[in-house]
């Protein structure tokens, strides 16, 4: 990304150069705005007065009503506190957090192990097994056979269906393998001469040295798990309590009935608040925001890992 500058030629810039530069900057500003404004708009809709949202008075800034009923700049978080009354949301948040933590951790361990072993040229039929793993990236038997297979394994309506199939991630194995191959083999060899076992070499030498790539695949895995929707949609037909957050949100977004009706009875909210909570749209927005926030929060810190991941991925495995 960092490009060394070649100053000599840029010293004299023609009018055309200036126009071009400005046009490019404007273009990128516009596109960046298009990328972030929707998130901002979603956010201000959830922290404004719900009546103003419904009547379309919230366009660029969060608005509240003052005593006179006029719209003024302001923020409230009632929608977020009201979320605890939304039926089934809690369980799907729990399920999603659980699968993100468990699924990611186990996937990283499996991948680190497989990625390390697959670099071992001495392994019996190594290149065959490597292809055996990698081909699954490009080939799948199809949706229905996959579903029937999961049914056969007893992995429908079962939390384990979120974890076990995700353990082996061929793309991540390629990333880890490529990375480990770039580690000087002398480190490993000296440990072997000192009598370290494969497991010990993996634990004491390979794992600490491959932390950057493991962080990368952990982030990929965590985002993937957090965003998971399809497996929940297909496999959890009889277990609504195991729906993931995205699946739950999908249901909310598609429910024609008023979400307010889905709120459990006897909550702590007052009559008036309950009335304004009947606003289905705002609930949808707030749930959406809740499922976006974790990604937005971790993203800036993790961006370099993402970039590293895709760079390594571009190198053929």
């Amino acid at each position, binding site marked *: 990304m960092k490009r060394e500058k070649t100053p000599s030629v840029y010293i004299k810039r023609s009018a055309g150069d200036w126009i071009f530069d400005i046009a490019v900057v404007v273009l990128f500003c516009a596109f960046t705005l298009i990328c972030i404004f*929707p998130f901002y708009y979603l956010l201000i809709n959830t922290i404004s007065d719900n009546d103003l949202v419904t009547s379309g008075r919230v366009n660029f800034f969060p608005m509240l009503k003052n005593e006179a009923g006029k719209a003024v700049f302001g923020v409230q978080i009632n929608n977020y506190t009201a979320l605890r009354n939304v039926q089934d949301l809690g369980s799907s948040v729990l399920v999603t957090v659980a699968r993100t933590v468990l699924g990611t951790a186990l996937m990283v361990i499996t991948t680190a192990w497989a990625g390390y072993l697959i670099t071992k040229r001495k392994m019996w039929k190594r290149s065959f*097994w490597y292809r055996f793993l990698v081909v699954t990236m490009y080939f799948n038997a199809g949706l229905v056979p996959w579903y*029937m297979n999961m049914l056969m394994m007893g992995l429908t309506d079962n939390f384990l269906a979120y974890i076990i199939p995700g353990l082996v991630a061929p793309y991540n194995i390629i990333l880890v393998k490529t990375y480990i191959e770039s580690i000087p083999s002398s480190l490993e060899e000296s440990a072997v001469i000192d009598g370290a076992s494969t497991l010990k070499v993996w634990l004491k030498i390979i794992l600490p040295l491959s932390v950057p790539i493991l962080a990368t695949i952990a982030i990929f895995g965590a985002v993937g798990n957090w965003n998971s929707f399809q497996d929940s949609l297909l496999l959890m037909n009889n277990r609504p309590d195991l729906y993931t957050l995205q699946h739950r949100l999908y249901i909310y977004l598609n429910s024609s009935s008023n979400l307010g009706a889905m709120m459990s009875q006897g909550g702590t909210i007052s009559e008036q608040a309950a009335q304004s909570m009947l606003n289905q749209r705002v609930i949808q927005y707030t749930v959406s925001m809740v499922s976006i926030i974790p990604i937005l929060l971790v*993203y800036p810190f993790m961006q370099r890992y993402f970039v590293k991941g*895709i*760079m390594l991925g*571009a190198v053929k495995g």
Partner: protein
Amino acid sequence: MNAAANALPQGEKMSLGRRLPLWVFRIVALLAGIAMFFPPANPGRISEKINESASLFTNGVSYGTITNSMGRILRSQWIRDADITLLMIACAAVMAGVILCGIGGCMSLGNRKMRRRGFLFPLAGAPMMAAGLMLIRHVHGRMMAHGEEVGKLDKIGVMIPGGFWVFCAFAALLFLTALIAFLTTEKETDPAAKMDMDEKYRLFLMLLPVVLLTFVFAYLPIWGWRFAFFDYSAGGSIGADNYVGFKWFHFLFSDPATTKDLLRVLRNTLIMSGLGIATSWLPIAFAVLLAEVRSTKFQRFVQTFTTIPNFISWVLVYAIAICLFSTDGFVNSFLSNVLNVSGANTNYLQIADHTWLKMLLWGTWKGVGWSAIVYIAGISSIDQQLYEAAKVDGANRFRCIWHITIPGLIPTYMVMLLMSIAGILSNGMEQYLVFSNAMNKDVIEVLDLYVYNIGIGQNRISLSTVVGISKSLIGITLLFAANGISKAIRGESII
């Protein structure tokens, strides 16, 4: 490790007579391991009412799957819960036996001491399998007696499945070969000898769990292709009576409604993929232009924010679409409240016009910043001397871009292009599923979504499988073709 490998008795060659039982044992153990996940070989399916898609493994671990399709029978206690529990225990015992044999099989790759010790596992495991099988037989007897007692024997269809005899044969063979191998493996005379294994096998065995997981979740589904050759409906069974051969393959072309659907879906798929391929140069343009901005801070800022959409799910993209384009979304409220346009209450998501274009735009919004990263990195790896030399020769910016930057990115682009051509039939279904509604259904349904809709939505398992098989086969052909082209042109494979 080298040292350890050298410590192996290198001259340890075995005669054919000794190797034969060893290999028979390994192969049978492997077969038994596979059969464990193979529903037709389920020894525990002692009633027709036990879920047909349940394997020995499922029988051993999941009560719910065994009893999936026997609601009434269980409620009326024509089959007793206790019998099912007993059956589970029996199946678990058979499984444990198979696993012990598998351990023996793994250890048989080691040196003499390890082999000899390893054979103790199947010598315990095979009898355990036999005990499990006997217990299954016993449950069979109990079920039969109980069925007779309540007079519903015909309803519960008690039987001894073929898989039972298969596993009996497995147990006998495993025991026999393990015993022979054990007896013909001489006891290690050197008391200092340790259990050891050639490194190549040891490494393989360490990878084995990963290989098995891959097999079970990525290769085993191919077994589900059999549904294409039967008249199968969910919860039903397959057998000689509903075997239909290639009927469903013909059906795709002989049934006018299906053919019409298929053509419509193919059109959507090809157009959406085609639009994606036609705009696949956008990330390059993005990267080239961004590299022209001289402030690295600005570059990083743009990069950070334009890649965010890639990391949110399609459901959330849809939520954002609602927020912006629905009746009370941003566009309408902006038009009516800021620009004072009257009657601005169109729900843009419900309009079917320009659906392909809209889907392309959403895809671009989500993906372009992310796809550009590869090219941005590609640009930074281009040799700066090229630019300097070009400038000395009087080349301006655009010439530099055209003659240096872009040719430098073409190899990467070719790989991406070939991959997207290979994946032309796989657009994924999530995006189209979330955006589909009654209005745009006809133009938004792509192949993946169609497979989902007919297979899961309408329960036409066989038809959906046929479409899926065709798609998989065409996909893999395209992939190999793309790979061949890449090899021919660039001398490098892409997979």
